[in-house]
């Protein structure tokens, strides 16, 4: 019996041992991640139940689950989550399109970027929440304002980082295109854009989060629907269950959207 066991250990090749160690490492990481969540929820639940912290102000995991269940039953969950999700996705798509288009234009016409640089810098560093009241006056309260708020948060930074990325393309590659008889337009479509796909995707990862920020700011100020509205409304009527549940749904949305773009990235890498 003992001999047999020993034999098994000897039969393990270095490669198998490596794979085993690799798997074990990943299991430990996954376990510890889960452990943190469980401890956090456990402490939260325990301290509120035992009365160490006030349930009214801090809610508790079980009351959040109950509130969420109730939200699903009266379908307000779908209404509010849906509208926030749609507004975020629409502003994300518009940001992706406009930033790519404008960055391309800036690269194509060098002097244009030189002229516009100070304006881009100002618009990028301006805290976009300051624009929100102005947007309400201009566009009223509703999805349009919120989508524009979402765009305004992400679009300028996105243009700048795409343009900077385009400009960092190796000069030699452009020279190659010229020596083969191509034009600057050829350089754009054959070199700049294809070589920038990883940059464009990683830029999307940043944008999706920023759009969500903009949409929530917009909903704080100018909405009757959406998770941002629920958070503001809940805090005003001291319904902290509503506030914290909305924040948790937001966490899930942010994670989900990020994961979608990440899988797009993986798919692209696999294609290569």
């Amino acid at each position, binding site marked *: 019996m003992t001999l047999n066991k020993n034999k098994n250990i000897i039969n393990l090749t270095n490669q198998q041992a490596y794979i085993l160690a690799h798997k074990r490492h990943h299991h430990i990481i996954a376990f510890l991640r889960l452990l943190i969540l469980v401890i956090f929820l456990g402490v939260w639940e325990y301290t509120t139940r035992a009365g160490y912290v006030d349930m009214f102000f801090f809610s508790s995991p079980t009351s959040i689950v109950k509130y969420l269940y109730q939200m699903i039953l009266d379908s307000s969950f779908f209404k509010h989550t849906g509208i926030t999700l749609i507004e975020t996705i629409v502003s994300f798509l518009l940001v992706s399109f406009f930033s790519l288009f404008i960055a391309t234009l800036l690269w194509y016409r060098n002097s244009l970027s030189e002229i516009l640089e100070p304006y881009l810098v100002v618009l990028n560093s301006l805290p976009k929440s300051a624009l929100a009241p102005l947007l309400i006056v201009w566009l009223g309260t509703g999805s349009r304002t919120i989508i524009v708020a979402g765009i305004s948060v992400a679009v300028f930074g996105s243009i700048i980082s795409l343009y900077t990325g385009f400009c960092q393309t190796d000069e030699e*590659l452009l020279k190659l295109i010229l020596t*083969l008889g191509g034009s600057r337009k050829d350089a754009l479509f*054959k070199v700049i854009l*294809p*070589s920038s796909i990883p940059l464009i995707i990683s830029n999307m990862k940043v944008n999706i989060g920023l759009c969500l920020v903009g949409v929530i700011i917009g909903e704080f100020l100018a909405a009757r629907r959406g998770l941002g509205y629920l958070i503001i409304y809940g805090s005003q009527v001291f319904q902290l269950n509503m506030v914290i549940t909305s924040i948790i749904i937001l966490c899930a949305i942010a994670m989900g959207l990020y994961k979608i773009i990440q899988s797009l990235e993986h798919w692209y890498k696999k294609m290569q």
Partner: protein
Amino acid sequence: MQPILSLENISYSYHNLKGETPAIEDMSFQVMEGEFLAIVGPSGCGKSTLLSIISGLLKAERGNIYFDPSLTIGYMLQHDHLFEWRTIYQNVILGLELNKNVTKENTDYVLQLLKDYGLYSFKDQKPSQLSGGMRQRAALIRTMAVKPELLLLDEPFSALDFQTRMTVSADIGNIIRNTGKTAILITHDLSEAITLADRVLVLSKRPSRVKYELNVSYDIERTSALSIRNTVQYQTYFNTLWKELSDDT
């Protein structure tokens, strides 16, 4: 033999706000049809600038360049710059694509080149799957695909390791010789210049001008780089060039 290209009193300077840096001054030479010309010189002497002027990427400030307007020029850079997002085949037809010349006849020619240079079985692979020498051969096919009559080679072997460099430069030298193309090779490697070229021009330090001219010929066929290197002529040429270049520094 006819000169395919002649340069007369070419001058070129680089400008910035602090002043101008003359790179080439009063340079004149001719290249004959079918000739393999090597240009050597100290580093930073404006060798690449010279090729950029010949290819039309830069315009000479003074002087004239004469060649037949129908002359097609192929340019090979120091690095292969094969695009990772394209397969080898897609990379080598890039020039045809840019000239909107992707015809059956031309792609057949490219496929034949891929076969001739032993890359046919790699045509659907990505550049990263090829070795340095194979990549440089692919870059040569990309240049040859547009059927240039004059090839400009800007230190095309300098990024390769020594062993690959010996074989690839001999390979590419043979290919160019066998197809009867005219070529201008820029290099800082004296051995490379005298094994490959019919004539070597030595440039001076910046601002550069032609300082010395050496005609190169051997009693044996130029098929193997190693046997060339064992000849007495090679030794003599090498010493002459070495002396010319050392005088400068």
